[in-house]
């Protein structure tokens, strides 16, 4: 497989990158780890004339851990998150999720921002970060804006990114200390086949199913059951998940997919670990 020629640009700052993306329009694409982009190009699915390398933009590589939130630059690699001690301590579910993404080489090159901006339906982080209600910061020709990830993701390979817009960072608000967070996936191939993320807090529970639908699927009925039973009524939550998946899935109408999703919810609850203080 070989790629058609392009010109590589290496801006040092965000503004120059946005200007380059604006200048070359549809013929330009942001290049980070390239783990998705270069594959597409090798397969001939994309033939941009200009690659704008974002890896020299220091702003995109910041990673900050605070008591109440993680602030992760869009250019931070999976591997950096996976090996971050404070994140492992506070949010073990995110670290074990990251450890299962792809393989070591893809995690060494691929970025969290690249994963979310590519919006492959089989994304691991999208599901957990949607459950945690993460927000994403975007910067473009018109300035900056912040969107909930739940709104940023529109569908398969579709996001709210406007032309020449760049995701700069992902902010993950952390549930209170003691709340439990769990993620469980089944992967028959490289990427997750089906996954579930749960947040179990007194005041707020979340249940999200990943990889089955074009974007992560919230299951508020299952979340409500868990919230009213202090996280204990897993059987009812699994049943609610099965019903919810069958309802959206009407087209493909597959009991097996609904069954898998309900089992993932059970396992995510079983795997859930308490969020610890920094």
């Amino acid at each position: 497989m070989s790629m058609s020629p392009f010109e590589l640009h290496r801006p040092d700052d965000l503004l120059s990158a946005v200007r380059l993306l604006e200048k070359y329009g549809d013929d330009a694409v942001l290049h980070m780890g390239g783990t998705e982009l270069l594959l597409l190009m090798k397969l001939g699915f994309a033939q941009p004339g200009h690659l704008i390398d974002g890896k020299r933009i220091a702003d995109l590589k910041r990673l900050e851990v605070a008591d109440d939130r993680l602030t992760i630059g869009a250019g931070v690699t999976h591997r950096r998150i996976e090996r971050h001690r404070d994140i492992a301590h506070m949010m073990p579910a995110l670290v074990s999720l990251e450890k299962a993404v792809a393989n070591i080489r893809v995690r060494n090159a691929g970025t969290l921002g690249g994963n979310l901006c590519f919006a492959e339906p089989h994304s691991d982080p999208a599901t957990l970060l949607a459950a945690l209600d993460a927000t994403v910061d975007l910067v473009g020709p018109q300035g900056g804006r912040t969107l909930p990830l739940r709104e940023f993701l529109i569908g398969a390979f579709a996001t709210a990114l406007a032309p020449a817009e760049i995701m700069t960072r992902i902010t993950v608000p952390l549930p209170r200390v003691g709340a439990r967070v769990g993620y469980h996936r089944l992967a028959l191939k490289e990427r997750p086949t089906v996954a579930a993320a749960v947040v179990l807090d007194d005041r707020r529970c979340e249940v999200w199913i990943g990889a089955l639908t074009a974007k992560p699927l919230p299951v508020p009925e299952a979340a409500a059951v868990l919230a009213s039973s202090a996280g204990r009524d897993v059987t009812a939550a699994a049943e609610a998940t099965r019903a919810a998946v069958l309802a959206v899935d009407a087209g493909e109408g597959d009991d097996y997919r609904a069954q898998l999703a309900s089992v993932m919810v059970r396992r995510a609850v079983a795997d859930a670990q308490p969020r610890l203080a920094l």
Partner: protein
Amino acid sequence: METEFTLNGHAEVVDAPDHELLIDTLRARMRLTGTKRSCDVEICGACTVLRDGQAISACTTLTADVDGADVVTVEGLADGDELHPVQQAFVDHSAAQCGFCTPGMVMSVVALCLEYPDADEERIKEYLSSTLCRCTGYVKIIEAAQQALEQM
């Protein structure tokens, strides 16, 4: 575009088209054919090289993306006739059959030794699960990794 990097300890400057892939620079331009191309889609690990000590897939990395980096391929491991401890461990444990995955396996184990010198079996499996072997069944490779970790 010119790419300046260190390759197996030597400073190199390569003037290649922007779209050239690292595996082609290594194999076709530098004639270092130890790095293998197999799946070409970042799954198998036959093309594993180290960039600043981290394993990457040379099949899906732009040569331009190693600018300023320290790159090590399987050819850079041995010191003359003296094999690198990881290579020696593969020999000692007969950890290869057809051998096509072996350069990538060796590079993955080198990355493991650099990143987790105290790796336990679970960690070894985590690294090796990133690299595919269709012949050996992995047991010998795990034993080789254990020996290498002890010796390094």
